[in-house]
């Protein structure tokens, strides 16, 4: 970089003038669009294999990889959690409201594991259609709520339920 070039600043010789500059930008845009199209097609071809977990509906329709471990995700069905006598084994059902999958897991559950909350279990289906989980993760939703607000919401919910009953 010579001292003379430095004084020219941004007006440094654009090789070939305005026309080739436009051409270069066209090439950049064309190249980028072309590459984006390739990536879009590749991602499309990968399809559901990029997915982190399958829904219970997909499990019931046999849309899951056969003969190897996969993940199933959804809500823990309310009232479905049963703890076995050993204190470590847990039975619960994962639901996407349409279908449910029974899950058995022996191990420590994450703190946020709860009924009516999101869950992702990894493991495989046994011969009885029960999902033998080797790992259970809690899937948090995108809601951030203060305790007082949640209490108010619950209260409103209860009042509404009581009103419905009174009618």
């Amino acid at each position, binding site marked *: 970089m010579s*001292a003379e070039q430095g004084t020219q*600043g941004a007006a440094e010789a654009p090789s070939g003038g305005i026309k080739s500059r436009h051409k270069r930008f066209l090439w950049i845009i064309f190249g980028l669009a072309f590459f984006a199209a390739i990536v879009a097609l590749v*991602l499309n071809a990968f399809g559901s294999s990029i997915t982190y977990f399958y829904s219970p509906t997909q499990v019931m329709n046999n849309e899951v990889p056969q003969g190897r471990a996969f993940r199933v995700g959804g809500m823990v069905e309310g009232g479905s959690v049963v703890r076995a006598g050993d204190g470590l084994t847990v039975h619960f059902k994962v639901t996407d409201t349409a279908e449910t999958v029974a899950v058995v897991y022996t191990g420590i559950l*994450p703190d946020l*594991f709860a009924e009516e909350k999101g869950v992702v279990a990894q493991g495989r289906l046994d011969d009885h259609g029960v999902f033998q989980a080797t790992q259970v*993760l809690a899937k948090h*939703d995108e809601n*951030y709520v*203060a305790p007082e607000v949640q209490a108010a919401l619950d209260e409103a919910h209860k009042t509404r339920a009581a009103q419905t009953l009174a009618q």
Partner: protein
Amino acid sequence: MSGFKYAAPAQFYPLAGKMALWFGVSAAVLAVIGLVIGLYIAPIDVTQKDSYRIIFIHVPAAWMSMFLYVVMAFWGAIALGMNTRLSAMMAQSIAPTGALMTAIALWTGALWGKPTWGTYWAWDARMTSELILLFLYLGIIALRNAIDDPRRADKACSVLALVGVVNVPIIYMSVNWWNTLHQGATIKAGNSSIDDIMLAGLLFMVFAFWFYSVAVTLVRLRTIMLEREVGAAWVARLPEVKEER
């Protein structure tokens, strides 16, 4: 040409210095306000308790990691198309801050993931694409250091930055396109599913991260300008350089 006046390093160098100072001071003030709101005033989250407070670092860092990449690719495109030096230096100066933001986003996400999900890391689409973003930043920095001629390095890095830019919409949309362990977007135009005070703290932190990124990038840009144009007449004319002689 008045609009392009500052495209010349000689004009931009002093302006960048002034801007860096103001952006830096603003970032510090915003960060203090944001952290006070986030760590003291904002209530706990009903399910995550106190561990949700990582959001005040995690979300701004993650947004910046994507935003800075787009800005870097933009300056790369300008550098390729117009063959200008300053825009290439802009792109060069953004890369380390972008890499830092990506690393912070991944790191804080892991720290939050353990108490929330039960794992530090999962190979879901959101996390994997964000990890690829970190590798892109590091790759661009490495490529720059591997090429001795700065003008050739400008071109190579610009091309790599532009190729990698397709990853940004993938990161952003991954939680909608595929089933991911990572939750969907909380902040949405018009209807955000977050407490107002938490949102206020978050926005202060977003602007703090933004202004910090601008300030640090400008300081780095000034260093890069001096380094690359050390023999140029405008450097010799700088008051601080004249005094030295």
